[in-house]
């Protein structure tokens, strides 16, 4: 279950490139345990560190004093593309990121954000350029992002908004439909019996 999100005011750390992939967010070599934690140290490892001793790369945004511990990222097109690894979102969340402003998101990453309380906000290139590196206020109920005297609205699916606002557990919510699920299976089993396999068929 994720922490509920309503509003957040923080500096939007600029990571202004397109197609930031999940291998860049958390390289596979940094996924060292079978659990969901201990990942923030490996966040953006390929860009963040200069060597195996993890000397910080001073050019990387999160190593700059004003952006260390960033809670909001600003980026380009197709953020989170590539591998479906939810570790990318777990690493971001563990580091403290609660919102990503981007021109678009890859679909699996987008879904993983919703399940972990990170708000994916789609804004156009001009808006991203205007707010990157500045303090912004993200207001999820109002679906707005404010920066100084500018304000942009953003779209988000109603289902995703509710999950983020209330930090709901999706499995608990869906299990409330237990009767509908059972009815579907009964009906479907008659229509498509081959879908329903017997255990240890192999």
């Amino acid at each position, binding site marked *: 279950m994720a922490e509920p999100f309503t509003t957040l005011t923080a500096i939007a750390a600029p990571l202004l*490139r397109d197609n930031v992939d999940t291998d860049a967010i958390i390289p596979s070599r940094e996924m060292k345990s*079978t659990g*969901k934690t201990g990942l923030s140290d490996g966040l953006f490892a390929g860009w963040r560190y200069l060597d195996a001793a993890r000397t910080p790369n001073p050019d990387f945004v999160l190593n700059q004093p004003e952006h260390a511990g960033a809670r909001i990222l600003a980026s380009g097109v197709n953020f989170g593309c590539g591998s479906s690894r*939810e570790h990318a*979102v777990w690493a971001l969340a563990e580091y403290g990121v609660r919102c990503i402003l981007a021109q678009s998101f890859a*679909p699996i990453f987008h879904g*993983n954000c919703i*399940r972990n309380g990170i708000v994916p906000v789609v804004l156009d290139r001009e808006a991203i350029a205007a707010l990157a590196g500045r303090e912004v206020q993200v207001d999820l109920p109002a679906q707005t992002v404010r920066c100084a005297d500018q304000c942009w609205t953003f779209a988000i699916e109603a289902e995703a908004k509710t999950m983020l606002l209330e930090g709901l557990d999706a499995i608990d919510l869906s299990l409330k439909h237990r009767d509908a699920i059972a009815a579907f299976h009964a009906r479907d089993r008659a229509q498509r019996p081959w879908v329903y396999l017997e255990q240890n068929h192999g």
Partner: protein
Amino acid sequence: MTTLFDRLWDAHVVAPLDGGAALIAIDRVLLHERTGAAALNALSEAGRKVQDPARVFAIMDHIVDTLPGRTDRTLMPGGQAFITETRAAAQAAGITLFDVGHPDQGIMHVVSPELGIVLPGLTLIAPDSHTCTQGALGALAWGIGSSEAEHAMATGTLRLTRPKSMRATFSGQLAPGVTAKDMMLALIAAHGAGGGAGHVVEFAGEAVTALDLEARMTLCNMATEFSAFAGLIAPDEVTFAWLKGRRYAPQGASWDAALAQWRALRSDADAVFDAEIAIDASTIAPMVSWGTSPQASVPVTDAIPADASSAMLDYMALQAGAPLIGTPVDAAFIGSCTNARLSDLRRAAALLKGRKVAAGIRAICVPGSSAVRRAAEAEGLDRVFLDAGFEWRESGCSMCFFAGGESFGDGSRVISSTNRNFESRQGLRVKTHIASPETVAASALAGAIADARDWAHG
């Protein structure tokens, strides 16, 4: 008016949810050892059960070694725990496991179609972005994260906002030496790595229906590199002939009943899509990537674009305007869920037969599944690869990605039949060029990026 995607979606709506979302029935869940333990353990820690274990499969593919004589031990530091914990969790949950050493082990997106686990009309999910491969059989198949895998196993459903629909029509015929891999790289190069975002992309047209089923899987495999929700091809007689008799496919009267339903799985002639893309397949050439996104790909005979991203060029140590052909490579890799099926290995072997890879080139072939490996060996393809100087491996994802274990040398340049050329994807600072298996084979022979059409045996 109805699209194939509409038909698949509508057949799986369990209940509408607020705000236009829906609870969608999930027919098959596949897991692998990289994330399987995390999902299964999180479920059991929450006191939840796998709702229908008979429809969940776990397959060891991601970090299992591919060296001959492998065990649970891995070259990846700490990798053994992923294998043993996934095995224990799978056994405790009562799901079917294709373990290390099992004759059906292999890359999940090769194994599932081979065994008929995926079928036309099904919904199938896995915590792996290349699950879209399996849309080639007319199933709605897509990658998800661990939380969604837990949700699907606990409830038999997922909560989804309906994706949009797109049709990518490849008209005309492919030229000789041009493959499904080239079609996808051409599509992504033309429309961007984010071009399919939010859409279920149905691949259609003469050049698609002319593909055999394995090539259709290659096409759908890289739908995720287009940022699509899923890739999809309407099932036809090619699909049905390929599936008939496979272990988990229906048999006898059940097969006949299924077939009658599967024949209706197509988009109507007047179906309306949210977006349409058209490509003349006859204009597509063999493609090679030059940058660190699949969209940074060009015909092998072209120069690197004059306006190429300088960040990508710096990483790849290439220059704008320079030709790609002749760029020396250190290694060649044939493998992955994209291009390691029997037909892929046959086409590469046809070029390699009676030849040797260039001096100093490390060349590796990793069959897509243990069954592919056995079939290739039965027709002597292993000898062709070995005699040419390739390593011949056990099946798995292998060096498609670097998990901290086996890798190509730091900063080396690799021509690869895989799907991702991201920074350090195949090893620290490794420069990956993705291409078809033919192009990889020809480049291994040349010791540099080559046009496979120049290497065809007369």
